[in-house]
């Protein structure tokens, strides 16, 4: 497939890994956080842990919207879906996340709730149009990639006067989370977790551009390289980060220049701004309340805002105390550090969100990495095609 296959050349991946090994200064260590779950997935899947030299390590970040959605909001969505007049439309990723009572949307569906998995907001609109007697609620989550499609759904619903369509908005913004991680005591206190640079999100950046990261690179003196989601993209980004560190530079570089510009998709940004505004604060699973990190519908669209329309109660709920998702999201711990990993918590029985989404650090480690944990494989990189 064009624009996919040519970025999966295993020989080139290994060649660049060798360049990283010869470029990295053996006297120092390099810790790079990949913010985005898409990168986590590639890093696990292609065995980067084995390919990279020991002094270049990847730290998983919070970049999966499923992982960071607090379970109180899952509980609220389940409660809403249980109401007989409601049809709740949701992306498949959310179906297995459990709330504090061990319920999930999947379980609620089995118990009779009208919950439909959709691929796109276009499907949710179609359902609302076809079934005017139902109250169709779209359970919206996601970073800046997924917010513009929600904005367009709202725009279309208004244009077509779909009075039975509304949105339960859980969209969050990426820069606020990066800022929080960089300022958290775990990261800023010396002797704790070390982050020397960031791999910036691919498709979030296609929408917001590389400009929002310039502030971090400057303020925290950390290099950022925005990278695509194929193995060659990621490994090239690591090399670019190593070079920046060696040169004492800390700027924003764009590896994914075929899809990302400095200013991003201005049209998509404008659609989002038309319909959404920042919340004063929003809870992130594992990171807590983060100021100006979530979006809600603008007040003039209250009729389409499920939280207002159905007087939804969202509450704060504690995670299972043994689940280490929070620490994993901040890059402080690894999946194998969690007592529940692989025992009670597996992709079939996820206890925490990091096990639910295939981009979650725990799920990625379960699928591709767990056999590596005990002994590093001698034939490093064989997972690369």
């Amino acid at each position, binding site marked *: 497939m*064009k*624009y*996919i296959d040519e970025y999966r050349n295993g020989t080139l991946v290994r060649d660049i890994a060798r360049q990283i090994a010869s470029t990295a200064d053996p006297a120092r260590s390099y810790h790079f956080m990949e913010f985005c779950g898409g990168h986590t997935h590639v890093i696990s899947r292609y065995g980067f842990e084995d390919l990279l030299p020991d002094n270049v390590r990847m730290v998983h970040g919070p970049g999966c919207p499923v992982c960071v959605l607090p379970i109180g909001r899952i509980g609220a969505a389940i409660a809403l879906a249980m109401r007989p007049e409601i049809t709740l439309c949701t992306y498949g990723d959310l179906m297995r996340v459990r709330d504090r009572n061990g319920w999930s949307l999947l379980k609620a569906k089995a118990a009779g709730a009208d919950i439909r998995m959709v691929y796109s907001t276009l*499907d949710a609109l179609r359902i609302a149009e076809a079934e005017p007697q139902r109250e169709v609620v779209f359970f919206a989550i996601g970073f800046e990639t997924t917010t513009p*499609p929600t904005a367009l759904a709202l725009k279309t619903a208004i244009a077509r006067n779909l009075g039975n369509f509304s949105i339960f908005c859980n969209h969050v913004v990426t820069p606020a989370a990066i800022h929080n991680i960089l300022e958290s005591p775990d990261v800023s206190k010396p002797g704790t977790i070390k982050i020397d640079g960031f791999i910036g999100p691919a*498709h979030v950046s296609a929408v917001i551009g590389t400009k929002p990261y310039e502030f971090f690179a400057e303020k925290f003196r950390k290099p950022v390289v925005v990278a695509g989601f194929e193995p060659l993209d990621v490994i090239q980004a690591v090399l670019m980060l190593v070079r920046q560190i060696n040169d004492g530079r800390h700027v924003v570089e764009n*590896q994914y220049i*075929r899809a990302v510009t400095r200013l991003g998709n201005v049209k998509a940004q404008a659609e989002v701004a038309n319909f959404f505004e920042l919340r004063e604060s929003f809870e992130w699973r594992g990171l807590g309340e983060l100021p100006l990190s979530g979006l809600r519908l603008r007040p003039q669209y209250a009729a389409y805002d499920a939280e207002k329309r159905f007087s939804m109660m969202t509450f704060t709920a504690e995670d299972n105390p043994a689940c280490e998702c929070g620490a994993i999201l901040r890059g402080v711990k690894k999946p194998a550090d969690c007592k529940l990993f692989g025992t009670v918590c597996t992709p079939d029985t996820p206890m925490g969100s990091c096990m639910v989404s295939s981009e979650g650090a725990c799920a990625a480690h379960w699928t591709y990495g767990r056999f590596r944990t005990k002994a590093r494989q001698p034939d490093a990189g064989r997972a690369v095609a």
Partner: protein
Amino acid sequence: MCLAIPVEVREVLPDEMARVTLDGVSKIISTALIDDVRPGDYVILHVGYALTKINPEEAERTLALIQEAAMGHAT
């Protein structure tokens, strides 16, 4: 969740929609988030919407830089 894939536009349809193909599988998507879509363009598809166009020159430049990096020249 943020995974998205490059697809080729085959036909521009009314109402800012387009028919695209990925490995022979055809799909109707929304192009309302981008401008000037033409058949033959590659776009990044995410949850039913084209998020951005792929710039073919930059794609080639990236591959050239990767080749150079693999041989040990500075990128």
